[in-house]
C-alpha cells in the first residue's frame, strides 16, 4: 500500500516537475527532456492505477509500452528538428 502511494506520488511529482520545467525553460533540449519526464510520469500513473490484488493489469502495461515507443519516435523527430535549427543558426 505504501509502495503504491510512493509510486503514485512519484508519478504525480514527475508530471508536476515536468510541467513546471516546460513552463519555465526556453531551452530546446530542456523541453525535450521535460516532455520525456512527463511521459514517464504518466506511465507511472498508469501502472500504479493498474495495480490490483491479482497483479498488474496487462492493458495499461500495453499502453505504457506503446507510449514509450511513440515517445522515442517523437523524441527523435524533436532532436532532429532542434539540430537543424541549430545548424541553420550556425550557418
Amino acid at each position, binding site marked *: 500500500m505504501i509502495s503504491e502511494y510512493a509510486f503514485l506520488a512519484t508519478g504525480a511529482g514527475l508530471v508536476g516537475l515536468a510541467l513546471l520545467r516546460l*513552463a519555465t525553460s*526556453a531551452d530546446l533540449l530542456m523541453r525535450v527532456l521535460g516532455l520525456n519526464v512527463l511521459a514517464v510520469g504518466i506511465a507511472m500513473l498508469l501502472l500504479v492505477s493498474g495495480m490490483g490484488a491479482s497483479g498488474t493489469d496487462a492493458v495499461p502495461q500495453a499502453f505504457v509500452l506503446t507510449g514509450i515507443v511513440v515517445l522515442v519516435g517523437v523524441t527523435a523527430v524533436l532532436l532532429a528538428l532542434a539540430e537543424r535549427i541549430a545548424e541553420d543558426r550556425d550557418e
Partner: protein
Amino acid sequence: MIAIPLWLVPAAPLVLLLAFVLPSMRGVARNLVPLAALPALLTATATPGPLSVRLEWLLLGSEFSLSDTGAAFLFFSSLLWGFAGWQALRLLADDRHRDRFFGCFLLAMTGNFGLLVAQDMASFYSFFSMMSLASWGLVLHGGGAPQRFAGRVYITFAVAGEVALFAGLAIGAYFTGSMALPAMASDGVPPLAIALAAGGLLVKLGAVPLHLWLPLAHSAAPAPASAVLSGAMLKAGLFGLMIILPLGETASPAAATALAAMALAGLILAPVLGLVQADAKATLAYSSIGQMSLMALGLAVALAAPESWPFVAAALILLATAHAFAKAALFLGVPAVWASSRGVSRPAIILALCLPALALAGMPGTGGFKAKEALKSAFAAAPEGWAVWLGLALFCASLGTALLMMRALTLLASTAPKPDVPQDVVFPWLALLLFVGIGFSAAPLPFVDAGVVKLPDVLPVALAVGLGLCAMVLCRVSSLRVEPPAPGEILGLLRQQTAPEPVLALPPPRLPRSRNRGLVLRRARTRLVRPESGSLAILGMTAALTFLALLPDAPTGELTGDRTVATTP
C-alpha cells in the same frame, strides 16, 4: 363645320413638336407652328360642338369634352397662339435657340388647349403643368440676367402653384371619389382642397400677392410669348377657377371676402406700381394684373351671391376675351414698334395701338366697354354693402387701366428702335389688330344695351387722359423724376446683382477627404513571445480546467437514460 375629334386639339401641337426631333423636318415644322392652333380654332367654332371623348387607358382614365365656356376660351386662345406663333416665327427667324423656343411654345400650347378640354383632374393637371413648365422655357429664352431672375421667380411660383393644385385635386378626388373635374365644385369637398386648388390657379391668374412672378416674366419673355402668357395662359387660371369653385350653388362669404380683398389689392397695386415702370412690357404686365383682379372680383361676387353667377360668368368670358385680344395686340405691337424707325411708321403704329389700349380701358364702343358693362350689370346682384365699393372698384379699374395704357404707349413711343428686329413682325400684329377692331366691336351681347353712351362711361378714360397730361406737364416743369423700382418688387431685394447663380447657389466644391477611415489596422509586428510562455499557458489552462471540473455542476437530469443523440429540431 368640319367635325374634328376633340383629342386632336391638344394633339396637333404635340405631333408637330415630335417633328422637331428630326433635324431634317425642323424647317417645315417651324413654319407650321402657327397652324398648330388651327384644329383648336375649328373645334371652338364648330357647331354643334364636338363629341366628348373618353380614353380609359390614358393617365388615370381621361375624359375630354368641350363646354361652352371652354369653347369661348378655346376660341381666343387658339387665335392668340396662332398669331403669336406667327410673330415668333418672324421675330426669332435668326435666333440660334429658336427650336428650343418653339419646342416650349408648342408644349405650352398643348397644355393650354388641353386643359380647356380636359374633364378629369389628372389630365387637367397634366395639361396645366405642361403649360406652366413649358412657359418657363419661354420666359428664360432671352438668356440674359433679367431672364434668369424672372425664370427663377417664375418657376418657383409655378411649381408651388402646381403642388398646391395637386394637393387640392388629390384631396378633392379622394373625398368625392371621382376623378371628374367638375366634381371639385360639388358638395363634400373639404374647403382646404378647394383653397389649395384655387391657390394654385390664383398663382397662374396673377392675383395679388401671388403675382410677383408676372411682371418679371412678361417683361423678360419675348413679345409673342408675353402675348400668350398674358392673353391666354393667365386665362387658364381663370378658367380653372370657374370650374372648380362652387359657383352658383351656395354662398361662401368668407371665401368671397378673401378673394375680393385680393382682387381689390390688385386693382390698387397694379396702376401704382405699373405707372412707375420704365419698361413698356412691365407696364403692360401690371395692367394685366389689374384686369385679372377685376375678373377675380367677378368671381368673388359670384361666390358671395350665387344667383349672380350666370351673369358673372358671361361677363367674365366676355372680359377675358376682350382682355386677351387687346393685351395680345399690345404685346405683339411692341416688336412692331421696335422694328419701326422714328419716321412715319412709328406714330402710325402707336396710334394703331391706341385701339386695343382703349378697348382695355373700357372706352365705350369697344369690346372692353361691353364686357365691363356686362360685369357691372352682373354686380347688381351683389350682396348688401358690396354695391358701393364695387362701383368704385370698377371705376378705379378703368381709370387705372387707362393711366397704364397711356404710360405704356408713351414709353413705347420713346423706345429706341432695334435694328435686329425684322420688319415683318408687323404683319401678325396687324392681323390681330383687325380682330380686336373689327371682330370685337360687334360682339353680340344680348343683355347689354350698347347703344347709349353715357357720360360716366367715358369718365375714367377722360380723367386718365387729364391726369396723364397733368402729370406730364408737372414732370416737365418740376423736372421731377420717378425712379423705376427694381423689377420684382420685394423679390428685387433678393436679386443678386453679380453673376446670379440659378435658383439655388451651390456650396463650393468640397475637396475629397483624404482621411482613410476604415476597419483596417496597420503595422502589427509579431511580438517576440517567450518560447516557454506557451507551455505556461498550457499549464494555466490545464489547472483552470481542472478547477472548473471540481466546481459543483448545476443539477443535471438523467445521465444514463436515453442515449439517442438529438439532431436538428
